[in-house]
């Protein structure tokens, strides 16, 4: 079947099998391997993207189900060289180590802050409880999201290796 899905504001049209999962549709798109997967049972959150602004687990959606909706992936966070406060916060507060859970965590954070711009620590922990991180113990992720809440304006700064 033919599907046409809006990802990061761009319409992507492709012939797919109905069973193709959204996460695979995204990852098969050139330049969009930032959305990861880490389990078979919708537990780990590595695949989280925004669907009409709300975090969803893209491994538990068919690509076909995303037609007619707006998908945003991690690649959409930086705009014209300006990092999203979430990205900046993760870098400032050392909220990533291996980086594998990071896109899912950041998109979850982005969804949270868009709805609740001033979350408490408990609200942050609850919001990210659908994702697993093996590296950071979550402490710095929580601090990074708080930082992003406190610094809501994107900062055009060089973050390069």
């Amino acid at each position: 079947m033919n599907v046409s899905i809006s990802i990061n504001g761009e319409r992507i049209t492709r012939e797919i099998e109905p069973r193709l999962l959204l996460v695979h549709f995204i990852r098969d798109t050139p330049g969009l391997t930032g959305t990861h997967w880490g389990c078979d049972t919708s537990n780990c959150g590595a695949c989280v993207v925004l669907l009409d602004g709300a975090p969803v687990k893209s491994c538990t959606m068919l690509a076909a189900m995303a037609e007619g909706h707006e998908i945003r992936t991690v690649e959409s966070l930086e705009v014209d060289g300006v990092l999203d406060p979430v990205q900046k916060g993760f870098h400032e507060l050392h909220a990533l180590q291996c980086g594998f859970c990071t896109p899912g965590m950041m998109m979850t954070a982005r969804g949270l802050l868009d709805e609740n711009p001033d979350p408490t620590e408990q609200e942050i922990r609850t919001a990210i409880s659908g994702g697993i991180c093996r590296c950071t113990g979550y402490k710095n992720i929580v601090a990074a999201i708080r930082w992003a809440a406190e610094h809501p304006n994107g900062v055009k700064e060089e973050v390069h290796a």
Partner: protein
Amino acid sequence: MTVVENLPSPQTERPIGFGRLKRKEDARFIRGKGTYLDDIRLPGMVHGAMLRSPFAHARIVSIDTSRALAHPNVAAVVTAKDLETLGLAWMPTISYDTQAVLAGDKVRFQGQEVAFVIATDEYSANDALSLIDVEYEPLPAVVNARKALDPDAPLIRDDKAGQRDNLASPLWEAGDQEATDRAFAEADTVVSRDIIYPRCHPAPLETCGMIADFNPETGQLDIYNGNQAPHAHRTVYAHVAGLAEHMIRIRCQDIGGGFGNKVPVYPGYVCAIAGSIVAGVPVKWVENRSENLMSTGFARDYVMHAEMCSKDGKITGLRVDVIADHGAFDSTAQPTKFPAGFFHIVCGSYDLQAAHVQVKAVYTNKAPGGVAYRCSFRITEAVYLVERMVDALALEMDVDPIDLRMRSFIKPEQFPYETTTGWTYDSGNYAETMRVAMEIAGYEDLRREQAEKRARGELMGIGVSFFTEGVGAGPRKHMDILGLAMNDGADLRIHPSGKAVVSISAQTQGQGHETTFAQIVAEELGIPPEDVEVRHGDTDRSPYGLGTYGSRSTPVSGGAVAIVSRKVRDKARLIAATMLEARPEDLAWEKGRWYVKGDPEKGVLIEEIAERAYNGEELPEGMEGGLDAQVIYDPPNLTYPYGAYIAVVDIDPDTAHVTVRRFIAVDDCGVRINPMIVDGQIHGGLAEGVGIALMEVITFDDEGNCLNSSFMDYLIPTALECPDFELGETVTPCPHHPLGAKGVGESPNVGSPPAIVNAVIDALHATHGVDHIDMPCTPARVWAAMQGRPAPPQ
């Protein structure tokens, strides 16, 4: 050991050298531009999928691949018969055993590899698995390590000539049995416990996988793989597959966590390589999460019996007996001379009179492995054992568990300290670290709060653990893996512009090496870290070494980088002397600059020296141009980081649900290159400890069915189960390490489970008489302990 300055460069506010520096590698990860294994697509690439055994123990009667081969998208189906013609049906393990790549005669654990499908795409490969018809004849299975050596236990390794039972590794001993018997005979108090460290799993968020790309025209085998020891793997593949080692290139790009899970060579890798050699196209194999949990290197599974004794208020003796469950094949990873890893560091942080340890390993019908998950080669098991026993002894002696530790600690003046089981601890001031932890925790206040709560029927526990571990394997005369000495190399090249490239053997899986190793060069040479490129993960572009696990990166590769930087600095001194028309001995160093002693205006920057090294101007007599150096570092000893941990738990008296309210961790890992990264490593390991103590476990039923083969059943803590960790530090430099650093990655996983379990028992002892509980402390198991009933079956 050279004392290293820690001064920021005058030109910039960012540290040039040690200090809290934000990570260079973040740039790609925060943009979703990491390159993990499954992100890599090569032209003409095909996909592999593995058919696995549903039975824990069964004879294979027949395998019919015809229906799978008839699938239009299937290119090949590989079975043991096919691998036999290539000599690849079995492969050697790190423990000098053999492991089936694909099962031929029998399957020996649920999830064992039986056939490998190669198809055009992942979905078709998965479909084809259900088109392979295997007829099995189930056999009785043994999944309990204690039963594995029963005379009527089914024989698992009937493939090994002369194997009559399920003993995987003969009895291994350390310490002095006679001296230990004497200590126990003279003791005032003796306690004993049966303690299990259950099977758990490192479960990194990225599963294991490989792309193998063999070019039949050139004979080059390109491998993309997330593994923790690329050079060692290359050597193994050369032996196993009979390939020329110099024609194998392994590239580990970004790895989504390792924790020891990505150390072994897995059958899927060998099948991908075999597939690519035969088909001449790239073959990608990526395991799913069930495969990861069911078949890859698990951790722990130690069944232990221990006794500990004290005299005059001080711990004097320890004896430990261990049955180690290695699964169906002995593939544990540890240095050759240490079949039980470093378990015999179990004498811990105490000035014991004597200790005796014996470990034997058995086969069971479970996945192979055992050494993984930040274990420091079994030190997690050892520290768990000794710290549980110290608390058991404190209970029996009716003394505060911290007081007993303080009285029994090795004292600062006793270092370097030789333990009764043959370790030489380098440096330590244990009491100081313990005091810092008590202060951060507010220990006295916590005890007061506990008493008040107890009076109201509320259950609160305070648990302590103190650990000394040994990391940084290791000296070549003692430590090799598969005959490969555990040394690491470092190559440093300074370009004419003063920019540097340092190539290292260590293999990051998130530890921040692109930043910390640049910081070492920065510290030694004064070149800003952003001008130092750290090269790693490519066997063609990095020096031979044994990779990253066992917290060895800083102790070994870090030592190598420090020494190679000093070699460059020494050469730079000679060039500087020529530039300044002075004698080398008249020059002094400040970070980034050689200058004339007594005339500090007269100096040259390292960048200027670099330019001189390459331009046509005069160089010292006999010196070659360029500013490069190369070393292989052979550490003189392990390093011995240590720490004091305190856990505070609350237990619901009716539901028995345990919450870790606070966790205080004071680590002493010597000099800290980047405190931000050190803290991050500790946070992560503590979260793993919360998981292991409360919820992570791999269990089996009597037929050998794995009951925790997905993230629905293998539970990993979320942000809601982890407290806001409170960290402290003490710094006791390592006297033999070039930087005084010790390494820290595994310490938090080593030290945290016993603190939490000790806290649970502390909450329940006075009111419910609980004096032991095995992990995980799930509500059901805690409740059973509170009722005095035996723990539910594992």
